[in-house]
C-alpha cells in the first residue's frame, strides 16, 4: 500500500478549495475552449474559472479573454454560454471594442459625464490567451508563466499536431457533479476501475493493463515536492484497441497515426483529452465550482472529413451517448464517494498501482507551495 498525500479535507474543505483555486486556477494555463467554439467574428463563449465569470470573444479572427463583468455596474455582458454578438452590456448598453476598451456609453454621453481621459481608462480586465492547435487556454495571473513552463515541448507539439486535425463540428454538454474536481481527475488516472465499475459498459476491445506502478518521487519523504517540475504533472497514456470495429464513417475522415490506439493526455490540472482510434477526440474538463461541486464539461469532435459526411451529427451524438453511459457510472460512484467524505471516520488508502494518483497529488501540492513562496 502507499500513503496518499491527500486526506479527506483536501477534497471537502472550503478553505483548501480557495487555496487551491488561487494556486492552480488563477496561476496556471487553463483549457477553456476549442477554436470551433469561436470560429466566426463575434462568436463568444462564457464560463466561470476560479469564481470569476470569463468571456472569450472572437473579433475579426483574434480570440481574446476578458472578465465578463461590465465596468459600469458590474453586470454580465454576455449572458449565454455560446453566442454571437458584440461586447455590449445588456444592462445599459455600454459598448466595448475588440480589445475590451470602452467605446461608448450612450448616444448621449453627457448623461454619464465621463471626461475623455476617464473614458480612455475604462476597459475590461483582459486575460492572456494561448492557442495550441485547436485548443484555447487562458491564464488569469497578472504575470502569466510561459506556456512552456507548464507543458513540455513534446506535449505542445503533440497537442498542436493532433488537434489541428480536429473538425469544426462538435457536440458539447456539461454536468454539475457533486464531487471535488480532484476526485474526477484521480478517477481517470485509475485504470483498475474500468474493468470493475465499467465491466458492462466499456468496450472490451480496450486492453487496459493494470499493474503495480513505477515508484513515484512523491513516495520518497526526502523529496522536496515543491521542486517537482510542473511539466511532469501532465501525463500521457496509450492503450491498444484490439479488434476495434472498423466503422463505415472512419473512411470519411482523416485518420491520425494513432489509429488502433486509445490515447489519453491528462493536461494538468484538470483536463482529460482523449484521441480515440485516430478518428475522434473526446475532451473532459473538470472545472471546480466548490469543494464538493465540479462542472464537468464534455465535448466530442471527429477528425476533419475528407469526403462528404452528411450524417456526421449521428456519429457525434452516438459517440457522446456511449461516453456518457460510462461517465454516468463514474458520476454516480464519485458523488457517493464525496458524500462519504463528510462522515468517514478513517482516511483514504491507495494500492501500489495508484502511483499516478500520488503524482497528481504531489503536483497539486507543489503548485500550492510554489504559489505561497
Amino acid at each position, binding site marked *: 500500500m502507499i500513503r496518499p498525500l491527500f486526506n479527506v479535507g483536501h477534497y471537502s474543505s472550503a478553505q483548501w478549495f480557495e487555496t487551491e483555486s488561487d494556486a492552480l486556477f488563477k496561476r496556471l494555463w487553463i483549457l477553456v475552449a476549442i477554436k470551433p467554439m469561436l*470560429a466566426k467574428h463575434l462568436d463568444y463563449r462564457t464560463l466561470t474559472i476560479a469564481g470569476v465569470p470569463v468571456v472569450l470573444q472572437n473579433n475579426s479572427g483574434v480570440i481574446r479573454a476578458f472578465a465578463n463583468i461590465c465596468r459600469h455596474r458590474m453586470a454580465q455582458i454576455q449572458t449565454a454560454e*455560446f453566442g454571437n454578438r458584440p461586447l455590449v452590456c445588456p444592462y445599459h448598453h455600454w459598448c466595448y471594442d475588440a480589445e475590451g476598451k470602452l467605446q461608448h456609453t450612450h448616444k448621449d454621453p453627457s448623461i454619464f459625464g465621463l471626461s475623455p481621459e476617464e473614458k480612455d481608462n475604462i476597459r475590461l480586465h483582459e486575460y492572456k490567451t494561448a492557442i495550441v492547435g485547436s485548443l484555447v487556454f487562458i491564464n488569469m495571473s497578472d504575470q502569466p508563466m510561459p506556456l512552456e513552463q507548464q507543458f513540455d515541448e513534446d506535449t505542445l507539439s503533440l497537442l498542436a499536431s493532433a488537434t489541428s486535425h480536429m473538425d469544426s*463540428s462538435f*457536440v458539447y*454538454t456539461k454536468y454539475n457533479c457533486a464531487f471535488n474536481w480532484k476526485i474526477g481527475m484521480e478517477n481517470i488516472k485509475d485504470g483498475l476501475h474500468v474493468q470493475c465499475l465499467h465491466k458492462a459498459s466499456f468496450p472490451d476491445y480496450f486492453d487496459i493493463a493494470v499493474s503495480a506502478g513505477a515508484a513515484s518521487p512523491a513516495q520518497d519523504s526526502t523529496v522536496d515536492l515543491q521542486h517537482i517540475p510542473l511539466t511532469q504533472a501532465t501525463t500521457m497514456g496509450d492503450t491498444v484497441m484490439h479488434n476495434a470495429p472498423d466503422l463505415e464513417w472512419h473512411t470519411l475522415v482523416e485518420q491520425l497515426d494513432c489509429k488502433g490506439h486509445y490515447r489519453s493526455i491528462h493536461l494538468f490540472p484538470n483536463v482529460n483529452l482523449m484521441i480515440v482510434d485516430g478518428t475522434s477526440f473526446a475532451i473532459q474538463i473538470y472545472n471546480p465550482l466548490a469543494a464538493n461541486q465540479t462542472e464537468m464539461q464534455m465535448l466530442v469532435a471527429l477528425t476533419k472529413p475528407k469526403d462528404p459526411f452528411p450524417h*456526421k451529427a*449521428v456519429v*457525434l*451524438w452516438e459517440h457522446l451517448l456511449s461516453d456518457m453511459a460510462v461517465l454516468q457510472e463514474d458520476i454516480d460512484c464519485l458523488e457517493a464517494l464525496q458524500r462519504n467524505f463528510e462522515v468517514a471516520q478513517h482516511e483514504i488508502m491507495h494500492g501500489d498501482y495508484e502511483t499516478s494518483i500520488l503524482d497528481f497529488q504531489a503536483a497539486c501540492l507543489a503548485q500550492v507551495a510554489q504559489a505561497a513562496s
Partner: protein
Amino acid sequence: MKPLLIFGANRHTERVLHEIKRDAVYEVMGVVDDSPQATAMPGLPLYTRAQALAQFSSAEVMAFIAEGEDFLNQTRLGLYMAIKQAGWAIAAIASSRADIADGVRLRENSFIDSDVRILRGANLGANSWIMRGSELGAGAKLGSSCWVSANCSIGDGASLGKNCTLASGVVIAPGVTLPAWSTINQAMTITSSPSTTLFLDPRFRAPVTLHLDH
C-alpha cells in the same frame, strides 16, 4: 387499389399496415426486410430485397419505407434514398382518420397517423412521420426526415429543421424554430428558438448542443 411493397418489418410496419387496411387505397403485396431477425407480418409474404426486386416491377408497384427514428432518422432516410435511387416510386400514407387541411401536400414517404391534425398552410418535408394525436399548426413547417411522436403539438408558424425528433408529449410553442437535427427526448414545452442544434434527453443533466459547421 395501387400495389405497394413495404420495406421494413418492425413495429412501425404494424402501424402503417393498420392504417392502410382501413383506407383501401393500397394493396400491400408484401414486406421486404433483409435482416435475419425479420419476421413476416400475418397474412403477408416476407421478401428479401433481392427477391422483391426479382418479383416486382418498380414500374407497377410503389414502395414505402417503414423504419423508425433510430439514429436521428438516418436509418429510414438511408433506406428511402436507396429505394428511390433504385427507381421505385415512393408513396405517402395518411390515415383516413387524420384531419388534414386542404392544400397541404404530403411528400414521399411521409406517414400521417390517425387523429393527427394538420392545419392550413402547414408544410411537411419528405420522409417525415407524425404519429397519433399530434398537431401541426397553421403555417408550421416540418423539415424532411423528421419524427413527431404521439400527442405532440407544433404551434402555428413554428419551424422544425430536417432530421428533428420529438418524443411523445413535446410542445413547440408558436413561432419557435428548432434547428436541424434537434432532438427533444422528453415531454416538455419549448418556448424559445435555440441558437444551435439542441438535444434534450433525460440521460443528460444539461442540454446537449451540437455545433455543426455547415
